């Protein structure tokens, strides 16, 4: 009797185990495809599969790959249950790989998909996702180039008054009258950075005027390459004004590459030499207020300009005039009044008008429940 009961118990346990096992059979990942990742340099393959039902018991996935004629190897570790895509960036270019997606349950039961056809990665010559960006860039460039060449016809181009640039002559005149020097800092930017190049352009215009007035122009530089280019800019400005005798190469000098040592150095020059005018034009970081406040404390007329929106409030608070953002780039056209440069400013304004139009249109369409502009812009970004 006892044996019968024991046999029945064993059978019951076996039946329960078998039925539980059958109820947790994992479905294999379906529709597994492997393809060359679009818009990359051919260094990755994308594997996709269909999402499993929530009650499938799958707790994760493993990706297995096989190099032609080789064994299976696991890549990427365990992926979370909801994953349906994996990008294998560890492939070797030129080799074809076949993939298997393995579903894993909490009890470590596994089931594998069918093996995909071998795929190899190949680089694309054009990033199709950047077409809208390319179109926008071409349109904007065309507007600028058209305006530049239109300006050559001699048409009068209106440019709004920029107080910071109007004050350049005032600042130089003040320094000349007081018999003091002018200090010009290009900030911490490297030579390849656009704000630094814009600053050099302004410096060229300032140097022309200081050459005329014979006012000493001191330019401490943070970057050795910037220093060399600046020397050439200032020297040419003095030559163009017919005053090479006034040019002193030692006035354009290297200070240090260290950010705060540069700030200390420029502050020291300000405190010792008390320049009547201070120009802070270019790329600035945390040292912006240290420089601007020291300039303020010595009573110098200060004209600052930067494209860093984080430093602008400091300059506005501490300087007499501030070129805000794009005004830094408009300075060369504004100061030189060259028609071609002014034309590019008008092209820039067309770009702004276009963006403004897109924003207004986007807002109106969103309010009307149409969101294709928002979707397009999100896709581009």
């Amino acid at each position, binding site marked *: 009797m006892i044996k019968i009961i024991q046999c029945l118990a064993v059978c019951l346990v076996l039946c329960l185990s078998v039925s539980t096992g059958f109820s947790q059979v994992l479905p294999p990942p379906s529709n597994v495809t492997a393809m060359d990742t679009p818009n990359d*340099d051919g260094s990755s393959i994308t594997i996709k599969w269909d999402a499993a039902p929530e009650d499938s018991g799958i707790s994760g996935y493993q990706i297995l790959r096989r190099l032609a004629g080789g064994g299976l190897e696991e890549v990427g570790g365990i992926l979370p249950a909801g994953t349906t895509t994996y990008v294998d960036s560890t492939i070797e270019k030129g080799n074809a790989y076949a993939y298997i997606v393995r579903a894993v349950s909490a009890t470590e039961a596994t089931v594998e998909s069918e093996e995909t056809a071998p795929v190899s990665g190949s680089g*694309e010559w054009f990033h199709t996702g950047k077409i809208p960006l390319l179109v926008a860039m071409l349109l904007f460039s065309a507007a600028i180039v058209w305006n530049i060449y239109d300006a050559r016809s001699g048409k009068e181009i209106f440019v709004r008054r920029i107080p910071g640039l109007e004050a350049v002559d005032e600042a130089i005149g003040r320094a000349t009258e007081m018999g003091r020097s002018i200090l010009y800092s290009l900030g911490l930017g490297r030579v390849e950075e656009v704000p630094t*190049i814009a600053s050099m352009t302004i410096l060229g215009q300032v140097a022309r005027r200081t050459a005329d007035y014979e006012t000493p122009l001191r330019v401490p530089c943070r970057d050795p*390459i910037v220093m060399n280019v600046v020397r050439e800019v200032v020297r040419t400005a003095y030559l163009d004004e017919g005053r090479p005798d006034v040019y002193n190469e*030692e006035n354009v000098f290297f200070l240090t590459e260290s950010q705060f040592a540069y700030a200390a150095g420029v502050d020291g020059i300000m405190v010792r030499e008390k320049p009547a005018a201070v120009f802070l034009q270019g790329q600035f970081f945390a040292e912006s*207020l*240290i420089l601007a406040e020291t300039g303020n404390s010595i009573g110098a007329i200060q004209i600052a300009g930067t494209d860093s929106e984080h430093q602008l409030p400091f300059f506005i608070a501490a300087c007499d005039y501030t070129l805000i953002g794009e005004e830094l780039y408009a300075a060369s056209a504004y100061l030189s009044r060259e028609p071609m440069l002014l034309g590019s400013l008008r092209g*820039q304004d067309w770009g702004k008008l276009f963006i403004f139009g897109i924003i207004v249109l986007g807002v109106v369409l969103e309010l009307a429940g149409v969101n294709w502009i928002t979707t397009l812009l999100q896709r581009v970004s």
Partner: protein
Amino acid sequence: MKRQVPLILCFAFGIVMILTQFSPHSFSQGIYEEVISWTLIISPFALVLATATLIQTHVARIQRRTDHWQYSFVVFVGLITMVVIGVPFGPQHQAFEWLYTNIQVPMDATMFSLLAFFIASAAFRAFRARTFEASLLLITALIVMMGNVPVGDLIWNTVLGWLPLEDGASKARQWILNNPNLSARRGIILGVSLGVISQSIRIILGIERSYLGGGD
């Protein structure tokens, strides 16, 4: 010729570098990385030139006995010490690291810490409520400052507890940062971006050539 060659090079490299941004192919990315790495070659030469300029400047100061010329000796002491230790033993040497950690880092930190005082003095000037704009700035700044400190919400809930808005200081601060502040910032960023593109086009086309040393 002195001007034409740099202009041609600038145009060619400018166009090629733009194109590499639209081509993910390893060939074009290779060109991009190669050109970027060329700047590393220029840097050591420029550094030698910079060191020569630094020495020249301070020797001239000592020779001419200009104001505070004695400090130029400090420059030479620092320069020679770091070279004598750094060149033969490398930057990982204990003495080099000690000098860096115990001299340069504290001096940098000192300069940086001055910023706190400069912010206070600049804020004092900016927030004087003389005009409508300055008053607006003052009120906004007070709200943002209140929202930034933990006690701000406590003050709000205690003093303005009768209002239906709980933790209003931090919420008002967040609203100011997310709406008027972010809108203004984005406006500036858009203008700057267009300005950068415009400036780049002028440089690539050779219209803006002052960086070569003159406008002609």
